[in-house]
């Protein structure tokens, strides 16, 4: 049985006439230790999908199974790295991480907790900034704190919702390597949501495109059989990489064209003319 399973997931927002179906018929299974990337356009329902998996939202129809058990609410077993870092601005870097470890390991003594905090802050090489508040950090540093916070709870699965979306290309590359390094150490299961095909190709074992919403659903999966550790410059000459990349981009472009042609659909307006209200006063 798969580690994480999504069976026939539907998610709608609103009710009655205002009901919009964001996700429809999502089926996904992830094996233990696998690194899966979901690639999609902005606004295609990626964040909704993530929130269904981490337990912040419940599906309208269908079920999310984690280790065979249906997901109800959030859990420390599934660590989340949010798109917008979501650090608490009134706490320092250390305090932000401490809050997470304290909740995850309530039985540990304060000394042990502090050691854990120091360990994970060191892992993302932010030890010199441990007493700084988020506003004193750059975007990349903030996201590293968010990574440390998520990992310090020792989750069995890491869910990343466009974690590097707001960063510049150079910082992005560095953080991709850092996340891969950390992931490589104990091979936790990982799910990465991204809008960057190259990022998915570089990091993941499998890429699944998300057809844009409303009624977003998952497309065919693309396996990436490139050995780790991968080298960014060598990747460009790798035939396998080129083919997969072209296939995914072609697939996404086709979806985009489809969506455009759909948008051209004509709507016939009812035959109405303004009411002659002058006669009303006679």
């Amino acid at each position, binding site marked *: 049985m798969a580690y994480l399973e999504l069976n026939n997931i539907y998610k709608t927002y609103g009710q009655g006439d205002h009901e919009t179906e964001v996700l429809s018929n999502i089926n996904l299974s992830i094996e233990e230790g696998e690194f899966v990337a979901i690639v999609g356009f902005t606004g295609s329902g990626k964040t909704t999908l993530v929130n269904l998996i981490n337990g*912040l939202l419940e599906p309208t129809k269908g079920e999310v199974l984690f280790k065979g058990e249906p997901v109800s609410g959030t859990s420390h077993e599934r660590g989340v790295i*949010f798109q917008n*870092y*979501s650090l*608490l*601005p*009134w706490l320092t870097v250390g305090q932000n991480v401490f809050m997470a470890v304290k909740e995850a390991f309530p039985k540990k003594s304060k000394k042990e907790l502090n050691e854990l905090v120091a360990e994970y802050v060191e892992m993302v090489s932010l030890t010199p900034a441990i007493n700084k*508040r988020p*506003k004193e950090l750059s975007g990349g540093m903030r996201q590293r704190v968010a990574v440390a916070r998520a990992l310090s*709870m020792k989750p069995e699965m890491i869910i990343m919702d466009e974690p590097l979306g707001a960063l510049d290309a150079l910082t992005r590359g560095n953080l991709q390597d850092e996340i891969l390094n950390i992931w490589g150490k104990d091979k936790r299961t990982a799910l990465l949501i991204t809008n960057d095909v190259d990022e998915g190709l570089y990091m993941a074992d499998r890429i699944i495109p998300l057809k844009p919403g409303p009624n977003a659903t998952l497309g065919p999966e693309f396996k990436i059989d490139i050995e780790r550790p991968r080298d960014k410059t060598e990747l460009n000459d790798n035939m396998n990489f080129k083919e997969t990349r072209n296939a995914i981009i072609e697939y996404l472009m086709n979806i985009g064209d489809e969506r455009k042609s759909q948008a051209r659909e004509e709507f016939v307006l009812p035959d109405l003319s303004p009411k002659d209200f002058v006669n009303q006063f006679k």
Partner: protein
Amino acid sequence: MKQSITLGKVTKFMGLGFLSTLKDLFTGKLDKEDFKNFLRKVFVPLASILLFIGLWHVGSKYLYNREADFKIEKALTDQGPAAAEAMRECIASGDISCQPNTLPSPSQVWDSYKSLLRDHNIISADKAAFIEKTATLNAKRIAEGKAPITYTGRPSFIDQIIMSLKTVFAGFLLALIIAVPIGVLIGLSPTLKSAFNWFVQIFKPVSPVVWYLLVFMIVKTILIDSNGDSSFIISFISVGLCSMWATLVNTAMGVSSVDKDYINVAKVLKLGPFQKVFKVILPSSLPLIFTGLKITLSVAWMVLIAIELLAQSPGLGLFVWEEFQNGANDSNSKIIVAMFVIGIIGFLLDRIMLTIQNAVSFNKNDGI
């Protein structure tokens, strides 16, 4: 790395940035661009203060002459030319008995200010002498289990300022103790919000005078057995109840509008309800709570004067009312002195709250 705290930073933080410009002027660190700034920040306010005093002087002179002319005219029609001439001489001689009673000039107000200070010195010397005189007697009375003799003389102007500050702080604390917890509860629970909403909406616009009467009705009955003076209790409770609404509404709004990202963090970390309130919701609504408290303090200071006047509780409000009833020749200028003191203290209280508010505030997007 710790940031050093300089005078410039502190004054800027308190909204008193012009002080550091003034310092630069005397230490010679001012260049041309700064000099323009200096003119704008120091010279312009000073000039407008002088202009204000000038206008006030001219205006009070005009009012004085108008009142004097009217008095002479009245003496002429009522009692004839001789009486009118006597009145003219009397006014010109500066005799107290026939001075026109109108808006005092700046110099009269300044004199009254000095006389109030002199009065304070006399009273405090008197008080010190009294305490010294009764020290041995009081020690004996306490040893015998009797109440000590206390000074019962008239309070000085400064004593009354201190009394007013005590009342306003007691009222402010009461508002804080009532409004913040209720605001948090209302903000957290939509059920409580609809239970309390009518209450807040109806009582918020009620006038200080009515609050005073309401509190008077209740406190008078509760303290029916005690012989003590309940005016202080009544006035601080009224001040608290009048001024707490801004804090209540702001707290409820701050708590109910916590950024969704922070709530998601609390959910993902699985914080318990207690932790969630104290570690996430309260810190993130602190800036709004302090905005409310700042408004509360300035409202409290404003209504205090009216309530002290009604409650006959010693303080600046009572001072103003007594001077008005007194009708002595320097009463009007003492009222104006009280007006300036009230204004300046209100300004300082506002600055103190602003400083605290700046210290606890953070930018909403700092963590995002």
